[in-house]
């Protein structure tokens, strides 16, 4: 019986693996088990070792990303184009690994003080980063969905890590339920797409959709469901309601991780799908993206204006920033603009990651002293902690898009992409974005005014002691924010138009 089955199915060939291209994933996977098993043998006072080891695992994986960028072919394709390591994937892998490393730096002191389960915390963090790294390379619906689950499931649990606190529990449950709901919608869209096209490979999907010249209803619904599912992940309005509660209830380093890395992973999936799988579906996704981008910017901003808690303010600000990152995708299908739209999204993701991580690092440092998340607790920060005051000002100015900081260059790229498109959609979203840039400056400046003009509300002006790891996180993010603004060509080169889009199969 088995012999006859085997004879009938003899066409299996072992896949060829490019171990160099898979090296970042392999190092992360090995690191997960190293941290997990070493943690078993550590005394409570040695637990810092797991944190240090996790940091080294991220850096080790980053080194292989570097060697991949330098040595050999730019594009390494495996499994018939289902898993690709190209420049687009490498720059995003580097982004996820650096963001993960900064989150480890931000966590080490915070998590140790809270006496949480440190070993498990870092294992879950590494697992989530592994999912993101996988997402950057995935060019197949199956890999994209599994990568989405791999990065989300650890994140659901990390959001609930403050488990003795009812807000922490609320954050975990809310994030989990809405996240699973979104995953189910995405999966339903993907299965409909597989049903009509018979393939899960993105490049094949690209040629199969509208192959007969007209959109079938199934294709429209499938594309819409997939976009909606990822809109939850990137907390675009109207799918953003979970974000402020989850950000407030989760441990602050995890909030930074969710608002930067997890969000960027959602964008990566959306961008890969848009450019590789839906190049002919622009009539469906462009209006969708337009509505999502316009609503995210405007509603995110209007809510951010009313917040008195810094974490909730940054949560709504990240919703609004998400709208700006979506903006170039509203014109991604216009001839000749796709390339600069792609570049704008990638550059914005990199700059936003550096800036927002930095802002959260300052929030953690200040909360060590004030034990408060209220914006009013930043009063007089410059007086007793001038370094933190200046850093927070730099990060907020970059988020607002003030030159010569990184955020300015990112916004410039996004505006340039939609204006180059020379369409009604492009001009209208540019006008909405311009208005929102001005509105957003208002709430960033409110915090700056507290830092520079006001007095410390309680009169307690003892200086803040910043632990070295948090200091390192601040230095890295601040350096990146300034350098990306002054010398934008650094990322501009990575987002080199022809390489990126060539690699994406256009």
């Amino acid at each position, binding site marked *: 019986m088995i012999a006859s089955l085997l004879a009938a199915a003899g066409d299996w060939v072992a*896949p060829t693996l490019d171990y160099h291209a898979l090296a970042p994933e392999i190092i992360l996977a090995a690191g997960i088990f190293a941290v997990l098993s070493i943690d078993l043998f550590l005394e409570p006072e040695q637990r810092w070792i797991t944190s240090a080891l996790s940091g080294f695992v991220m850096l080790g994986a980053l080194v292989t990303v570097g060697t991949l960028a330098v040595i050999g072919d730019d594009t390494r394709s495996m499994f018939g184009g289902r898993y690709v390591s190209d420049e687009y994937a490498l720059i995003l892998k580097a982004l996820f690994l650096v963001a993960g490393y900064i989150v480890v730096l931000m966590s080490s002191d915070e998590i140790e003080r809270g006496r949480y389960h440190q070993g498990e915390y870092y294992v879950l963090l590494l697992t989530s980063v592994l999912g993101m790294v996988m997402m950057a390379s*995935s060019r197949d619906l199956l890999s994209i969905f599994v990568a989405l689950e*791999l990065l989300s499931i*650890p994140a659901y649990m990390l959001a609930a890590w403050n488990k003795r606190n009812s807000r922490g529990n609320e954050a975990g449950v809310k994030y989990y339920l809405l996240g699973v709901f979104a995953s189910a919608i995405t999966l339903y869209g993907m299965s*409909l797409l597989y049903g009509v096209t018979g393939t899960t490979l993105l490049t094949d999907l690209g040629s199969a959709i509208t192959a007969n010249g007209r959109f079938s209803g199934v294709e429209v619904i499938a594309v819409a469901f997939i976009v909606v599912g990822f809109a939850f992940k990137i907390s675009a309005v109207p799918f953003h309601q979970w974000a402020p509660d989850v950000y407030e209830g989760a441990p602050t380093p995890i909030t930074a991780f969710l608002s930067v890395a997890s969000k960027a992973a959602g964008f990566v999936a959306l961008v890969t799908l848009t450019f590789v799988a839906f190049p002919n579906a622009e009539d469906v996704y462009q209006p969708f993206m337009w509505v999502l981008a316009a609503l995210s910017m405007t509603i995110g901003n209007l809510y951010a204006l009313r917040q008195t808690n810094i974490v909730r303010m940054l949560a709504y600000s990240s919703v609004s920033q998400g709208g700006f990152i979506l903006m170039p995708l509203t014109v991604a299908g216009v001839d000749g603009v796709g390339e600069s739209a792609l570049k704008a999204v990638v550059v914005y993701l990199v700059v936003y990651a550096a800036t927002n991580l930095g802002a959260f690092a300052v929030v953690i440092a200040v909360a060590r002293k004030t034990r408060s998340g209220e914006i009013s607790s930043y009063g007089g920060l410059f007086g007793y902690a001038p370094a933190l005051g200046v850093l927070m000002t730099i990060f907020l100015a970059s988020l607002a898009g003030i030159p010569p900081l990184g955020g300015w260059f990112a916004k410039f790229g996004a505006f340039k992409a939609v204006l180059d498109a020379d369409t009604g959609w492009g001009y209208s979203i540019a006008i909405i974005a311009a208005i929102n840039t001005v509105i957003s400056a208002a709430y960033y400046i409110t915090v700056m005014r507290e830092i520079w003009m006001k007095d410390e509300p309680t009169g307690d002006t003892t200086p803040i002691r910043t632990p070295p790891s948090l200091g390192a996180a601040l230095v890295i993010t601040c350096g990146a924010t300034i350098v990306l603004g002054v010398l934008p060509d650094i990322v501009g080169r990575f987002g080199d138009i022809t390489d990126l889009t060539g690699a994406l199969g256009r």
Partner: protein
Amino acid sequence: MSAVILAADDIQVAQNIGFGIIAAIMVIGALKVVTSKNVVHAALSLVLVLSGAAAQYILLGAEFVAVSQILVYVGAVMVLFLFGVMLTRAKLGKETDLDQPKAWLGVPVALLMLGVLAWVLIDGFQDERLPADATSKAAVEISDSVLGPALVPFLALTFVLVAAVIGGIVLARKD
């Protein structure tokens, strides 16, 4: 003998009748899930729906998916569900506060989704039908692709499970 009749007849009467009966059972079960006042009854009605889905997979010649559906949903998920009910609630039996006061809002949404999805599926697939001589090699093909093109997601799933177990233990344990 019957295979000859089915191959000759384009419409495959037996399958269609089977589909109709199972589909009716599934719809009734699904309605029971949302209308039942008793949590355990709702869970058992869900078993009916999930088993019905498994039966439909068999009719479509996807026996591997059908077996996984039984093992995972009817076996593991439902047992978990009933354990959850058993461990967290003292009271078994009728409850009055199960319904949201605004539950009726779900009705038009559900009807709208039903309409839209029914239309797109009928429009998308028109009168395509399964080949009458379809022999199932689904399990073989799945194993080939799991150890071939889908190797990376397959390995990644192991990490999903590891993460879920570790995180679940941390969040559930008392300390």
